[in-house]
């Protein structure tokens, strides 16, 4: 079974820094914080499972 593509270009639109909190279906951003602590604080009372991801302008040139 193929999982749906998680489109971070769409999700990160408008967010250039900080962290975003993403819905459990990976389709929309629920919260944004200037750091992870702030994003987690905003999502504290959310009942659904939340996935966190760091927001950045560019993910190119990563060598690992």
């Amino acid at each position, binding site marked *: *079974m*193929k*999982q*749906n*593509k*998680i*489109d*971070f*270009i769409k999700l*990160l639109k408008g967010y250039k820094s900080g962290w975003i909190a993403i819905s459990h279906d*990976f389709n929309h951003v629920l919260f944004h914080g200037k*750091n*992870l*602590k702030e994003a*987690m604080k905003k999502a504290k009372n959310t009942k659904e*499972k*939340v*996935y*966190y*991801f*760091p927001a*950045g*302008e*560019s*993910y*190119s040139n*990563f*060598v*690992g």
Partner: protein
Amino acid sequence: MIFPCSPLPDFKDKIILAPLIPVTFRNKNFEFSTFALVDSGASGAVISTVIAEALNIKWEKIPVTQGFSVGGSFRFYRFTDLKAIIYDTKLMADHEFALSVSIIEAISLYKCILGQKDLFQRAKITFEGYKSQLEVNFREYN
């Protein structure tokens, strides 16, 4: 199960495709869900200090160790009592396994990486760059 590579933004309207999979980490009563880069070149799992703090790991109290990467040396803190949970959309069940992680300060871009000593021990992983996807098939245990 098949994970399509995730498109990520770039400065030059170029699309970066990365093998990212959703994962939940558990440290006793603390859980944190994020997306891990699947990296066959990484010897083991890496998380940033901010993720460690979200999991209530007191990383400052762990003795520091020197590590090496292609970019040179780095300092890390080894934590050996973490659980990773990956949901299998094919079996509609969770795969949970214990892992040891290296906690690194000021890690850039990808804040979480799974590598050889953890995910690659638990699953057969096939990278299909020409299809922009990776396939993860967990081993069966009796």
